[in-house]
């Protein structure tokens, strides 16, 4: 099979006919609607621009949502934290609220790309790109976040567990809808979270494996845990078998080690020439599930024996 022309001949420029900058969410949704799905939302642009340059993405109209009002908040709402659709990774990583009440997310946001990327790339964009190892998506999945999606027809709320549909595919229609906010429960005093990442270099990296854990302690026991992994499936992956395994068990190294073993039965990383083999990443799932649980429990005030 001959290699595609676009893989051998690269462009410096984009080819987009229109660039629209709506002043309100309503206007933005109308713009999208009026183009019948042929327009595309651009926020920070760090995913969209390279895809346009490499001609992977073929759209003629961009709708820039980065100036919509009231999208850049990071706020506590009762027991919840609500993050606006325009919040960047840099803002989330630096937020005391997130650092304190969702540290896994702060850590993940602090590892995305580079400082330059984090300064523009939004958490909403990270979710909408639908990549299995995205550094904001995986912790948000462990935090049981839900997202609000707006379209010309109205709003809907979708839990992240139903949001990711396939590689690069989500429940959001990028030609018609806008992700306006992200909501999840702040960590309680007996809860902790952790985010671990394995890569070949320490910045601007391509993750081999990422793991986010939210754990609830009950004295020396694990009341419950949420474990999210990537890339071990086409989408950010909730490791339910290991979660069920640890629930109600004592927080011992043996439990956590067995949780790691359990996890390898359900997740299925593919062989990747650039990220690593299935066998290796399966081994790493064991280590990361154990380490992730250990760190999250420690944050919850529970030392693993």
């Amino acid at each position, binding site marked *: 099979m*001959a*290699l*595609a*022309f676009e*893989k*051998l*001949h*690269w*462009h*410096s*420029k984009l*080819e987009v006919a229109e660039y629209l900058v709506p002043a309100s969410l309503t206007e933005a949704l109308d713009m999208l609607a009026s183009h019948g799905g042929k327009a595309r939302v651009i926020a920070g642009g760090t995913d969209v621009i390279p895809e346009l340059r490499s001609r992977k993405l073929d759209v003629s109209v961009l709708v820039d949502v980065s100036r919509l009002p009231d999208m850049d908040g990071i706020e506590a709402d009762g027991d919840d934290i609500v993050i606006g659709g325009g919040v960047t990774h840099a803002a989330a990583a630096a937020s005391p609220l997130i650092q304190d009440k969702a540290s896994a997310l702060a850590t993940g946001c602090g590892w995305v790309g580079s400082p330059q990327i984090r300064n523009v790339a939004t958490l909403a964009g990270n979710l909408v790109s639908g990549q299995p190892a995205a550094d904001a998506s995986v912790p948000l999945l462990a935090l049981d976040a839900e997202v609000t999606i707006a379209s010309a027809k109205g709003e809907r709320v979708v839990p992240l567990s139903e949001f990711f549909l396939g590689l690069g595919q989500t429940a959001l229609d990028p030609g018609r809808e806008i992700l306006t906010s992200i909501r999840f429960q702040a960590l309680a005093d007996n809860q902790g979270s952790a985010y671990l990442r*394995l890569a*070949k*270099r*320490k*910045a*601007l*990296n*391509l993750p*081999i494996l990422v793991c986010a854990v939210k754990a609830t302690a009950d004295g020396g026991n694990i009341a419950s845990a949420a474990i999210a992994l990537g890339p071990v499936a086409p989408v950010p992956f909730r490791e339910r078998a290991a979660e069920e395994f640890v629930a109600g068990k004592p927080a011992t190294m043996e439990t956590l080690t067995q949780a790691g073993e359990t996890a390898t039965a359900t997740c299925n990383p593919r062989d990747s*020439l*650039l990220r*690593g*083999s299935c066998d*290796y990443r399966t*081994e*790493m799932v064991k*280590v990361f599930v154990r380490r992730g649980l250990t760190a999250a429990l420690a944050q919850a005030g529970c030392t693993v024996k």
Partner: protein
Amino acid sequence: MQDKTQEKTKTQVLTREENELARRLRTADKPLTVAGTSIGRRDDPLKVTGKLKYGADYSAEGFLFGKILRSPHAHALIKSINVKKAQELEGVAAVLTAEDLPGRNGFGAIIPDQPVICGDKVRFVGDGVALVAAETETIAHQALKLIEVEYEPLPGIFDPRDAMAEDAPKIHEGGNILSDDKMVKGDVDAGFAEADVILERTYQVPFLEHAYLEPDTTMAIPQPDGVMLIEGPMQAPFTTRRNVAPVLGVPINQVRVRQIHMGGGFGGKEDSPIDLSCRAAVLAQATGRPVKITLEREEVTIQTAKRHPMIMELKVGVKKDGTLTAFQGVIYDEQGAYASLGPKIPPAGGSHVHAMVMMPGPYEIPNVKVDAYLLYTNHPYGGAMRGFGAPQVHIAHEQMMDELAAELGITAVDIREKNAFRLGSQTATGQVLSQSVGLRETLESCADRFKWDERLAATGWVDQAHTKRRGVGVAMGWYRTSIGTNGDGCGAAVHLHEDGSVLLYSGITEMGQGAFTVLPQICAEELGIMPEDVRLVKPDTDLVPESGPTVGSRSTTLMGNAIILAARQVKESLMDTASMMLMVPTERLDAKGRKIYDRENPDKSLDFAAVAARAMAAGKRMIGQGWWTPPVPSLDGHTGQGSPYHVYTYSTHMVQVVVDVETGEVELEDYVAAFDVGKAINPKALEGQIEGGVAMGLGYALMEEVVLVEGVTQNPSLQGYLVPTMLDVPDIQPVILEVTNELGPYGAKGIGEMPNIPATPAIINAIAQASNGRVRRLPADPERIFWAIKEAGGPPQD
């Protein structure tokens, strides 16, 4: 430290030829005022303000955009090609295929085996099958897409060992073995019989991308008088000219090549500019208009030269006390689709021969046999990259030294101490090292600074959970200061003006290494003026003397000497004039700090400028020309015996790492790199070469690899091709030692490539020392380290 090393240079054993050259040069003992100091880089003010112009920064107003249609097949016959639709597209000025070419359809730094435009077949994914020049980039792209090519795919070769099979498809008419070289010293069988321990190991390294930050760009600008002007970032303007002229079918003097400051080269811009210049030139000739070709990052990776991958099989014998008795090696050196800088230029030029010569390492070994095969495959091609064959073989021999030491139960430093070259040692080619051999001094100083013994004793688990282990590693290295061909001459010109200012003409190029700073420094030193009194004329083949390429760590030494000789011709005019003005014999005169003075009575002095004015008025020679050729290299074509390179730079690196034995992740904690550089002409610039070279070696060790599947590059962008970031590189502490090179300017040796070479094996050795994980196939990414630890039965259990 420096006093000690000076002492050791007293006992050289120079050959007669070396003696004669050293006498001609006689700079080694000169007290220095300007050379040897860390003056700032001349072009720094332009760099920190963003005013320095790179190739892409020159306006392309009025230029046509040149584009290359690349083959999607690794190996295929071209059955037909139809360019009609492309030609008819508005805004297209030319569409060229092989049959449109006016001259030689081939280019190459050594052998012109790469078609400017492929006619009958393609040999790698990225081979050029047609060229387009159009008014805009977009139109050029559309035109490329409209070209219809019918291919008949052929079976490809993607492993160099497959290329040697008798029934292997022939990539080039002459067969797939481009070079088959041998080096034989003593009797390896007898050597193995003497050995107490014999180890056999295979080491493997991948294609590497230079990843210079500036993507390639070239401009071809037809001049009214018929001359073709080529401008672009490049390391080898003369090699470029030598290729463009026959491709255009014109004499060499009808091509003018001007170098533009490079945004990094590392050997890669020795031959990629030949490719782009030939292609831009034929488009410019066909259209009569200026043409600019700029590659996108991904295209740089796909199309241009790489570091050669090698498979290296070693068998080495050693006595119980660590003395090496025999070394046997086989190199399968993968050339890829085209010859580039791989093949031999007799006697010892080309990266392949260099790899062979360097393969046994900087050690005295009485019995050596190396078979080295350079093999065509249907991959991208190997060219020059910072070390020219040496980094690969160092990765093999330096790992083998550690593996032997471990087998013997002695330390990695002990085994090196036992065998390292010293003054008078005989290399594997039978060359007696006659002078400037500071290898052992680098080991000693490096171990001192690094505190090797203490750190070695302190290696072990970092945490109570036994997930992380600390370890240390060492590697040594050697590198030449010339290119091993008979044509390694280097010319310079010095023009003195009546106000004392000087123009320096040199063809050595600037890519960030600091040549444009160091060369005027040498000129000023010789004339007794200040560096700012010397303006360097940028490389332009119409203006500067043939200087050879800016490669092989040869610039400071070879060009430095040429400049000294050129400067002396005008200095003679100055001294004659000053002698008459001061009524002091010339032998008593000296020049420094813009004064010419009587050594016996320093108050008796004249301003340099005043003497220059008088010399000019008296019709004295104001133009100096220097030509330096290093000692004639030799290397027997059958036995690989001789003196291929006249002097070597030496180095020892030590590094401390922490390995996460559960994941294979590595953290570098500390790094010391010691070098015998002969003489540091500009210590700060030299430190920069060291720190940058080590960082590049770190990338080779841990993360860099051009991943190819059936000839297709899987990671053409910098998202997939990983180079070290600021968070990956530790603080690198350079140690500079000066063991005088009698044949270098003020004792200097080359340093551009050396730092890159031992860095990689030092890190790999430290990983193995820490974790038992010995990674013999690079890069040692976390996965490879993880499996290597598993293969070794786990980390050390103490």
